[in-house]
């Protein structure tokens, strides 16, 4: 047995530890972003790094996302391994060209001669009344565009292993962390995201979903906060004698369609939970993967519990009305 210490970590601390360990072992790794230095990241995921590595490798940037994400691309192409933070995913609008026309395409345009080993980490999610420019998930917006891996962990163990895997990956990885899972009390955190996490560095393979609860009656698929809602719904369904299986996608690109399909083979029913906008999104993609493979796997029409196609409102009761939750998932099951 290894002598690895296990601690309960928040996702914020797990991300910071993953970056710290990769920076210790690989001098090419460095971090850029807004308020990631002295502040340690608005969402705590770079805390302590400035103190250990100094301003050369932990770079607070101007509010110039186009420039510093573009700089991440250039540095990655030239042999560095930048971890770049876009503070809220909602801000992608001011810098998307650097992301989807450069970061995501240069590998292809160069015929594989130029690699872009960078991590773009960015916060997602609402539920705390930050309104429609600071609460979106936008998973599908990124996953739709070829050339970048897109991942989003639901707990600290996965967050650490996936961050290490992302930094070591030779392809660009968009690492989307949900604010409500960060373990920051001021955002009202989901306690179940804070889990046992080994101190030793380890990787969680990108592109692999995980069955986080086994069951035989219905498959509930989600990612990030959606997994916690699905698990709560599964508890409620269990009280009715319904045995739900919960799949944590963990990665959207690559998407582990096989795990979803084999689960549905077993259960015959599929519900997809998604905090991103419903139309043209994750739920449609997951359902299509199953139906295209073999539509006879489904014993009833699939259901989705996703964010309606409206900008996210500020008022708490309106936002809560729109967000997916366990009761909506249970209701979706009953409607099958």
């Amino acid at each position, binding site marked *: 047995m290894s002598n690895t210490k296990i601690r309960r970590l928040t996702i914020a601390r797990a991300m910071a530890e993953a970056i710290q360990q990769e920076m210790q072992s690989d001098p090419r790794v460095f971090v850029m972003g807004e308020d990631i230095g002295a502040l340690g990241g608005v969402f705590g995921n770079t805390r302590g790094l400035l103190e250990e590595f100094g301003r050369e490798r932990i770079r607070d*940037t101007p*509010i110039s996302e186009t420039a510093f994400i573009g700089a991440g691309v250039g540095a990655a192409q030239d042999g560095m391994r930048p971890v770049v933070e876009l503070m809220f995913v909602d801000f992608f609008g001011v810098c998307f060209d650097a992301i989807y026309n450069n970061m995501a395409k240069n590998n292809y345009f160069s015929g594989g001669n130029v690699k872009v080993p960078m991590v773009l980490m960015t916060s997602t999610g609402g539920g*705390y009344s930050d309104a*429609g*420019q600071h609460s979106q998930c936008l998973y599908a917006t990124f996953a739709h565009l070829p050339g970048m891996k897109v991942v989003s962990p639901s707990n600290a163990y996965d967050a650490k292993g996936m961050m290490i895997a992302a930094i070591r990956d030779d392809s660009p990885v968009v690492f989307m962390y949900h604010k409500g899972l960060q373990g920051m009390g001021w955002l*009202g955190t989901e306690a179940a995201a804070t889990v046992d996490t080994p101190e030793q560095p380890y990787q969680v393979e990108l592109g692999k979903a995980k069955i986080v609860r086994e069951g035989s009656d219905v498959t509930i698929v989600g990612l990030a906060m959606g997994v916690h809602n699905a698990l709560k719904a599964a508890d409620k369904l269990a009280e009715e004698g319904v045995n739900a299986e919960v799949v944590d996608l963990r990665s959207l690109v690559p998407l582990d369609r096989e795990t979803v399909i084999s689960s549905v083979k077993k259960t015959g029913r599929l519900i997809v939970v998604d905090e991103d906008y419903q139309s043209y999104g994750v739920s449609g993609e997951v359902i299509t993967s199953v139906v295209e493979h073999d539509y006879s796997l489904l014993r009833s029409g699939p259901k989705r519990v996703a964010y309606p196609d*409206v900008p996210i409102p500020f*008022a708490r009761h309106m936002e809560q009305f729109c967000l997916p939750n366990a009761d909506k998932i249970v209701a979706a099951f009953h409607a099958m």
Partner: protein
Amino acid sequence: MTKTQRNRFQKGQNTMLISRETKLWMYKTMLLSRRFEETIEQIYLEGKTPAFNMANGPIPGEMHLSNGQEPVAVGVCAHLNAEDIVTATHRPHHQAIAKGVDLKRMTAEIFGKQTGLSGGRGGHMHIFDTNVNFGCSGIIAQGMGPACGAALSRKMQNKPGVAVSFIGEGAVNQGAFHESLNLAALWCLPVVFVVEDNAWGISVSKQDSTAVARNDVRAAAYDMPGHFVENNDPLVIYKVAGDAIDRARSGGGPSLIEIETFRLAGHFMGDAEAYRPDGEKAFLESKDPIPAFRKILLAEGTTDVALDHLKDQVEEQVSAAIAFARESAYAPAEDALTQVFAQGEYHE
């Protein structure tokens, strides 16, 4: 605190003649903004103790206070009419109040109520009041393009009005800043860009984010006048803004003004402000522009009684706005699914 930081606020400047009426309006409006925010600050903390969770209380979400920055809002907006356009930022209260946004409905919006300016959909970072042509964006520098467009529209329609785009000093490093300045100059638009330099963009200081010490120099790159106002002085701001706005109104084109100001609070409520150098907070509090302006007015012969009377009026306005917001109902939750498109509908 370093010497340069201290120097930021030590020089005074002389002022032109400004009518007593205008000065009293400026004082009263600064006070209104301050008392409004002090009250909002208290209510914001309701339901957030002992554990601070942004999602709780009658005012959830982020809260960016502007106290300390009132001189910018009044010095600029004193020259504006309802028809003029203002685009503001994530820190909009002082500008909204100085522009004459409906205080009751703005307060109700901050509470997320049905009577709010947007029925609770926007909240504190998305204040829109069409009666006075006021709007906001929480995305840095994204008010600048729309300000250019509003100015263009007035020009094309041959209608009066200028646009003022307020931004923080952190916004000058966005592409939108440079693109908007160039566009405004190229098309000679009636727009004035006002940079509120409070020295910080969240935890990152101006000197750590910006290659030039003063952003007025950047105006030269777009062949427009650039001005820098030191010391958060409402009367100097009034004069400099007046010149720039007159110029825009009379077809002379855009200007860029950077105003040295400061925020007395954290970036948002809940900010521990550990990044501030020791002593900065206390030093800034000693430079509070509102008591300083009161002293000027007293020295010029306005009586304590008259100023206290203004204060009473302000207290009444704030209480009325808060009472209106508290007593208003929430919209039905399903209203979240309305107003996505122009006919009030949404499409699944």
